[in-house]
């Protein structure tokens, strides 16, 4: 397998995530999609580490480790926000959360 295969796979997964983030109206699904995009990026980091120069520096795995930790924090806070929003508006439909919009 060459690096190109991994990169294309990462690109496909990123676009699937983008698709979800742009087209779904449920806030939780948008969070899913962001996770998919982050994971696609992680795949690229690892692939570049594996095929790139100087793998002893372990920069790919270390960066991925930090990304995973940040993503975990992001999910925790994001879901807390979703729950807070649900408590307030009784919905997580992003299209109905338009109180800032001028009518």
């Amino acid at each position, binding site marked *: *397998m*060459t*690096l*190109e295969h*991994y*990169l*294309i*796979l990462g*690109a*496909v*997964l*990123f*676009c*699937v*995530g983008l*698709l*979800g*983030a*742009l*087209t*779904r*109206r*449920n806030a*939780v*699904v948008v969070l*899913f999609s962001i*996770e998919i995009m982050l*994971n696609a990026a992680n*795949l690229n980091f*690892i*692939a570049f*580490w*594996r*095929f*790139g*120069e100087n793998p*002893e520096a*372990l920069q790919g*795995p*270390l960066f*991925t*480790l*930090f990304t*995973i*930790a*940040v*993503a*975990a*924090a*992001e999910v*925790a*806070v994001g*879901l*807390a926000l*979703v*729950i*807070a929003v*649900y*408590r307030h508006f009784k919905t997580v*439909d992003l299209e109905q959360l338009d109180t800032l919009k001028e009518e």
Partner: protein
Amino acid sequence: MTPEITFWVLAFIAVCGALVAVVRRNLIHGVFALMIFFAALAGLFLLLLAEFIAAVQILVYIGAVGILLLFAIMLTERVTGDDGRSIAARGWFWGLAAAVAVFVFLLLPAIQEADLPESAQSIQPSVKELGLKLMAPYVVTLEVLALLLTAALIGAVAVAQGAEVNKKEDSDDA
């Protein structure tokens, strides 16, 4: 031969899992599809000899993030979502077009144009090396990350509980 088959199978599972997670109406099915996607990605990491990252991927994404998502769904939505509401946002077509365009006109050409190394490096994966790296050059990053996670924990609890506290105060006033 064998790694190639494994790659194609895992890639297929990952893409299918991600697609199902994104387009499925039933959110619980979506979360489980997402977990299949995470697991397939962990398999790909193993294939790239990043075994510690694969373990962390399973531990964090399937063991923690997925379950958090399940909890969030159980707390917010009517799970099966069998009401006739559309699941897609109003401008869904433009979203689809944008996603496809990003792939076709941005990422794919970039990958094909780039001058990529052909063969993999020979590496000896070692968790110990990773740990030593985390302790010596990246220790500040690690500490900042720990701080971030603590802040996120406290913040998440505060945000999720704040509404309830406010409600209680409101009802006390009334």
